[in-house]
């Protein structure tokens, strides 16, 4: 891709980020309810005062004016963003959104990057085999598996795994990211404990995404198999194994790279439902909490990170794809 093409794509991504940020900001403020409402209820109960009085005191306390013009709020938000400051949580006032994200992101990254790599690797291999041996039993088995796992909500799978492996057999912990008895740090007991706790969330993601990768790969590989160069390679006497790994799989994988990159971006948002089932302290958990409490600043921060991740991943996939596929270079040229 030419430098001009790269600059164009980066520019488009920047505009998309800006639009996503503006949309998030405006849409969140259009949602019904307010952080003050539920807070005022708690405050009134806690301090034995009327709801009106609690509401009045809270708005005074946090210097929040729900009737402040949207543009003024936006200006303040953008000003903070320019300094890398996502603001303070409206509910947990002494904690910054940056701090919450810094705590949540590693857990989500840890679980989802491992599960994405595992499911992708297994999925593409299964897909390639299905395409290559279309009359074997593998094809219908994996297809049925994919239909089932893509139609069952992933949190149901999570509950199922929890019931069987944690409650019934006791092989895995019930929830959390690590045991309170281990000392967090770069030490073997902690790392192995983290892996042990992450096993079921990882397995959930792998089970629920594996089939889709396999089916997508199969579709792509079937297309590749019909190409002239594959037929020619077969006639030239290239072995089946080499044909599959060097010719079919490599080429069929290309369209999946984009999906992989976009999935990587999406996964930074975590899965509120799965993280809730396992009480896993990732991004999804905090998105759920912030939405429930109408913590606008926290919601904005979390959604901004997710949007930026998706957009950047998309950009990265474009750039990588251009390097992997010479035809894209030609188009850009």
């Amino acid at each position, binding site marked *: 891709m030419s430098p001009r093409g790269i600059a164009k794509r980066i520019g488009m991504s920047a505009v998309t980020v800006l639009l996503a940020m503006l949309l998030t900001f405006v849409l969140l403020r259009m949602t019904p309810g307010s952080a003050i409402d539920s807070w005022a209820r708690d405050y009134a109960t806690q301090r034995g005062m009327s709801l009106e009085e609690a509401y009045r005191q809270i708005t005074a306390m946090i210097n929040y004016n729900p009737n402040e013009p949207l543009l003024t709020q936006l200006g303040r938000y953008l000003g903070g963003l320019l300094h890398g400051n996502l603001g303070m949580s409206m509910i*947990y006032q002494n904690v910054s959104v940056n701090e919450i994200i810094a705590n949540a992101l590693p857990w989500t990254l840890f679980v989802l990057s491992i599960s994405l790599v595992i499911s992708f690797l297994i999925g593409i291999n299964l897909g390639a085999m299905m395409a290559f041996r279309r009359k074997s039993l593998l094809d219908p088995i994996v297809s049925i598996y994919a239909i089932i796992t893509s139609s069952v909500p992933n949190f149901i799978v999570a509950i199922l795994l929890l019931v069987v492996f944690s409650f019934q057999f006791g092989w895995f912990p019930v929830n959390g*990211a*690590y045991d309170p008895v281990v000392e967090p740090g770069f030490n073997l007991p902690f790392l192995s404990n983290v892996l042990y706790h992450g096993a079921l969330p990882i397995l959930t993601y792998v089970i629920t995404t594996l089939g889709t990768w396999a089916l997508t790969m199969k579709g792509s590989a079937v297309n590749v198999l019909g190409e002239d160069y594959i037929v020619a390679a077969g006639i030239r006497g290239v072995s089946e194994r080499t044909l599959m790994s060097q010719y079919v799989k490599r080429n069929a994988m290309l369209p999946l790279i984009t999906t992989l990159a976009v999935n990587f971006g999406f996964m930074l948002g975590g899965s509120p439902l799965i993280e809730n089932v396992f009480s896993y302290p990732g991004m999804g958990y905090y998105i759920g909490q912030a939405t429930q409490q109408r913590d606008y600043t926290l919601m904005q921060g979390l959604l901004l990170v997710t949007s930026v991740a998706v957009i950047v991943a998309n950009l990265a996939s474009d750039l990588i794809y251009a390097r992997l596929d010479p035809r894209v270079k030609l188009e850009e040229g």
Partner: protein
Amino acid sequence: MNLLRSGKTWATLALAVFVAAMSGCGASSPGLAARIEAGELQGAQKPVPDDQLKFNKEKIFRVLGGWPKPPLYQGNPFGSGGIGDTNNRYMFEGLYVFIRSTNDVYNVLAESTEDGPGTTTVHLHKGVKWHDGAPFTSKDVWAYYRLNNGADVTKYLSSIETPDDYTVVFRWLDPAPYPELKKLLLAQDLQGQIPYHLYQKYVDKADGLLKQAKPLPDRSKDGPFHLDIPDELNKQIALNWNEFTRSGPAVPVGTGPFKFEKVTTTDMLLSRNPDYWQPDAVNYDKIWIKNVPELSAQYALVKSGKLDWYDGTPPKDILESLLKLNPDLLHYRMYDPASVGLMYNIRRKPFEQVKFRQALTYVFEKSKLREIGNYYGKEYPKISMTGIMPSSLESELSAEALGKMTDYTHNPEKAASLLQEIGWSKGPDGLWRDPGGHVPSFIIGAPNNWVPGVNSAQIAAEQLTRFGIPTKLKAVDSTIYFANADKGLYDMSMDWVDVSWGFQNPWSSLKVVYWDGTKKKVGFPNVKKTGADGSEIDTGRLDLKVAGIDGKTVDVDKEMRRFPYVQEESERKAIIDNLAWIANENCWGVNFFQNVTGAWINTRTMAGNYPMMDQIVQSGRDMPLPETDADRLAVTHLNHGFNSTFMPREYWPR
């Protein structure tokens, strides 16, 4: 798409079968019933010596709880999100505890109490220490109320004095509340939560700000310590409070039997406080609290015996399944001082007409509402909504007042006749028409995450529709529901009714009706006054004058305000009779059923003198509602006296 749909159905069925099958796989050693039948639990039980512990050798009490997950966690119980209600009672103490359902008050940090003319003098236990080693003194109690000056009791106090480190004198305004109420007002607070040595800066500032306020001219207005606090001063007090709530410490510092040890997103460890002033009252070395929000996961933990105690009554089928699958589990039921009910919005037509509200009330078949809402609850068909917990109606109201109350037992003919009286007619299509010939349709609002409320509201809507008044349920996101209902956006709103959130006293539950939650949903009018600029100002004060039990007009707000100061019990009873009768006659809402909640004990790991031991085998470990006062108290203790006591001291590891 069809394939996907069939796949989904298949998968869901398979999941249900699989979970059921797997859940049945576990088996336990001889359960509680077998142990009782073998005579193992005869006579009074005593704590087991450490070397004889079999099933809980580490002496850990395992329960569920909630807290803001790190990095949101902090140690100030007044900070945003708090430290978790469940965890409060293990680490913090008050001068007293009260049992919410019985109003029994016990001394805790107070060693003794003397009532004098206009004063209550509390002598504190000596030798009590905060978890950081500082002594607990009278200055801490004073600090609690000077900083937390929104606490209910401060409206009735003129000052708090600390003549020495272990004596606190509460000086009451004249007139003072009647003696029992004074004690309950003090007992509902956890005074050991604001260590002066940690929060001196904020306490002294709050004290200084309060000193700037002038006394109120009379008793027509409330203020902390009878002070008239202008808006600007109030703002400074609120800002100081906000700074206090953000000031930490990082971990809780209380005086309670357990100290904070560690917290993660899902687990909290508390360890026995070695300096606790009542060492013999602590039978466990640690409390391990798990944060598991998912209900299905909670039930699985109960079933697999991974908890020692669990709070709540699941639906009937799940409850029976848990008891069947784990023979060590024991379930107790108890009345909840709260009922599930519906309130009519009198701001909307035709709900402003009492006969219309009464007609609708006659339509409801409460047994059906209860069966779906909470199978174990109890319906009271005769009443609409009284402001009194139904299970204590007979003890709180006179027979005469009860006898004069309208009986709202399901009666569709009566409903039809009342509607006809106000000009409504039933069309050939079976639908009722208002006097203008219009067929109305109504909405019942309910918070979407409140299962008993949503389920019973759905049945209520169906019952009204079947009667000929088309009604739909609108289950609304709970974060916006209450604000919407308070603004009067629904024709009928679901919420807890006839409920007392603090101590269980008729005045406390009537406050909810006339001053708090019910008032807003029903839409009672407030007194209005004209501002300096001629605009109308809502004073927030109830403006409700209605006929009382004797036919004379009653100013409800005035009666409510008078109640705390009436020293004669018979006069107080007369006020309660009148206000409850008014609520029932005006039919501002309907009490569907009184909630019944429960507590679970894992008897494999937790030993003690289980209440109603003689009925355990016969009841199949699903204990009936207690009938005697002693049993009621013992069972209520099992539920931490509804969040006010530290329960594990009455039980021990097995």
